[in-house]
């Protein structure tokens, strides 16, 4: 529960940065709000009913926004980003490029089969592949770090393809999450 106000604060700040041209208008709005507030405060302690703020304000958390999708999945032995994940990676690229203060960890993972050390390197190659695409989209190196967890942190625990396919992936983990 305590996290929500923090998110609101961060996203409001991010929004303010991203929408610099509208700053002059914002000044006028502040005046309006003050007037409204003055009109209501003399009475009892009333509060306006707010819409469910988190989903509508934070695009990273909005289930209707592609930015809430955080995983790229891979074929076995492969580190190629499949066509169906291009839109997801591009959306994160645009978000990061237009929010230069946002930072992301790209965590590569592998399924349990084969060598742990090779899987650590394979996870790194997967994460680094996503990093390179983001770089082409204008994301600065300082905004992202590609790391690997190899096969050590499986999302699904069974010993068959239904789990393995979930464990071959790169996750977007934003700073502060």
């Amino acid at each position, binding site marked *: 529960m305590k996290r929500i106000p923090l998110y609101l604060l961060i996203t409001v700040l991010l929004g303010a940065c991203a929408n610099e041209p509208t700053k002059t208008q914002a000044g006028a709005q502040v005046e309006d709000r003050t007037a409204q507030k003055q009109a209501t405060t003399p009475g009892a302690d009333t509060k306006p009913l707010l819409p469910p703020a988190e989903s509508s304000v934070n695009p990273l958390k909005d289930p209707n926004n592609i930015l809430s999708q955080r995983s790229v999945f891979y074929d076995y032995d492969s580190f190629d980003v499949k066509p169906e994940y291009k839109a997801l990676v591009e959306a994160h690229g645009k978000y990061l490029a237009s929010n230069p203060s946002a930072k992301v960890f790209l965590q590569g993972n592998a399924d349990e089969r*084969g060598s*742990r*050390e090779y899987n*650590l*390197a394979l996870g*790194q190659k997967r994460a*680094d592949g996503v990093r390179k695409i983001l770089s082409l989209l204008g994301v600065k190196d300082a905004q992202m*770090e590609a*790391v690997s967890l190899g096969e050590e942190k499986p999302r699904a625990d069974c010993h068959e393809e239904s789990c393995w396919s979930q464990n071959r992936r790169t996750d977007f983990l934003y700073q502060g999450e």
Partner: protein
Amino acid sequence: MASTRLTFFSVVLALLLSVAAWNAQAALTIEITGGASLQIPVAIAPFAGEEAYPDKLSKIVMDDLARSGLFKLIDTSGMTPPRIPADVRVGDWKAKGATALAMANVVAQPGGRIDVQFRLIDTVRQDVAQAVQLAGYSLPTSKAQLRLTAHQIADIIFEKLTGSPGAFASRIAYITKRGNTHELQVADSDGFNAQTVFTSREPIISPAWSPDGTKLAYVAFDQKKPIVYVQTLATGKRQAVANFKGNNSAPAWSPDGRQLAVVLSREGFAQIYTMNADGTGLKRLTNTSNIDTEPNWSPDGKYLLFTSDRGGSPQIYRMPSYGGEAVRLTFEGSYNVTPRYSPDGKSFVFIQREGGKFRVAVQDFVTGQVQVLTDNGLDESPSWAPNGKMILYATERLGRGVLAAVSSDGRVKQKLSAQASDVREPAWGPLLKAKP
């Protein structure tokens, strides 16, 4: 009433204690499947004086030899244990089928020291007046080192009767995982005396013994990413020797113990570097835009084997240990990883995938011939015994990680399992020297 309750409680207590003792003693239980087609029959007589100590030495020796799969242990019940060579009635032992007889006296000395006087007697030759002694040693030891002494006796018997050195007096390192608790443990080669040397809530992988057996290098994720540490076993102190941007992993000791090969992803992909064992003097060895990992030094220190996907699939390569041109060594199949030089340098063990199954295989350097040694599905992390006779590896049974071992000819197989833990990432250490 009171006495009944007391009895009940003492039974429960006894049960709890015995379970605890069992856990402490045999943290890893070893089960043998298969054996050599021609086993050497040997008799181990009860050692005179061994009953004064909790560990029965002759039993430890017998268990070691039996586990190797190369020996047939002769039943000694009904035979009078000889105390001196003159007691040995060679004909009686030969009639039992033994080709050799081991006997020993365990003698307490002043100041807590113990002498184990051990002899190995030839029980085949009857043409000579006196029994022929194949080996005779007086082994100074202490109560704390008695198990080690028993393993050294088993090594002497192994060498005298097979012609190859034994590897019972050695230790193994491995990782256990129970829930989210990961432990780096060290145990004797028979699974006894297991001790945890490092515990973490995050994964631990790739333990590697220093050639003198005093240190372990390993990779731990407790700082949220893989970092290479070297830990001194006697003090428990550990030092981060490779902690660069990105991943740090796959430590391998040079045979002289002065250098480590490590894998770093500081330039993007996993690449192989060497450094001094204290982390100084970093030098990049591979320079590719591919995966280069799992370095392993040749016994003479001149070469490194490693895994690379530079040819489109993971295969095994060899390059000089100062860097330079790499030569591809594996060509069968699309997944060959984790190469490890045999102690004599004539072959290497690795993991080969075929038909979706991961198996332990050995390739000869001269002939290039590959022998697949196992028939499991998910084998990993092969590690040679210091005598090159067995290969310890990790595999999976009923959804759980277990350790297993296979002889280098594929005939003898062992399974090692721990209670209620996943066990993985085994590394077989060097032979232990006696410290009387």
